[in-house]
């Protein structure tokens, strides 16, 4: 009983997350500049990769015919999901900071850029 529930919750997370991943990919193509694309990339990182990895972990935990190896599979997927949850925002932040400081991509349209004014350029 509990295995069936865990399995279906995992399947729902997997399928929903895969569609969110597709939405993020479409947004990455449609948005105009780098800072807007960062938003779409975040959608497809957290919504589109963290949730499917958790769903795959739940499915692995409830797959009986894997034997003891199902704990290895589910555990490594949970570890990967939480490592991604911590590291992906840090990586995007470092990339956005470097891009803004070196003016590789200009944010347009823009009303006010206080960070640029504070730096006195």
């Amino acid at each position, binding site marked *: 009983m509990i295995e069936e529930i865990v*399995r279906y919750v995992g*399947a729902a997370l*997997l*399928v929903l*997350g*895969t*569609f969110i*991943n*597709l939405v*993020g*990919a*479409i947004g*990455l*193509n449609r948005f105009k500049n*780098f800072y807007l*694309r*960062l938003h779409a*990339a975040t959608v*497809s*990182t957290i919504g*589109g*990769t963290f949730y*499917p*990895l958790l769903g*795959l972990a739940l*499915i*692995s935990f409830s*797959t009986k*015919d*894997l034997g003891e*190896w199902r704990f*290895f*599979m589910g555990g*490594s*997927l949970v*570890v*990967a999901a939480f*490592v*991604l949850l911590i*590291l*992906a925002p*840090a*990586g*995007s932040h*470092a*990339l956005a*900071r*470097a*891009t803004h*400081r*070196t003016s*590789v*991509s200009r944010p347009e349209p823009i009303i006010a850029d206080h960070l640029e004014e504070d730096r006195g350029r």
Partner: protein
Amino acid sequence: MSLIEVLISYVVLPVLSLSYALYLLVAYRGPTISDRVLAADVFFYSTSILFGAIGLLIRSPIMTACTVVLVLWAYALDIYVAKYLERGELGD
């Protein structure tokens, strides 16, 4: 075939392939290097789902152990390119 195998074969893998095509398009035509790195980043993160799904499909536990390394690799790419763009120590 069980329900999970049908879902992975006919829903998850085709939708993921479509996302991969769109990510590769951005990585190819992105105007700046940051766009390309961002697309490659999301591409590697999505590859971890692919590895998990295929590992579950072919019942191979070794496939899923690679996902942690893939996530760390994409993060290393981010930090490396950010450091290259700033030409100095990060955090100054």
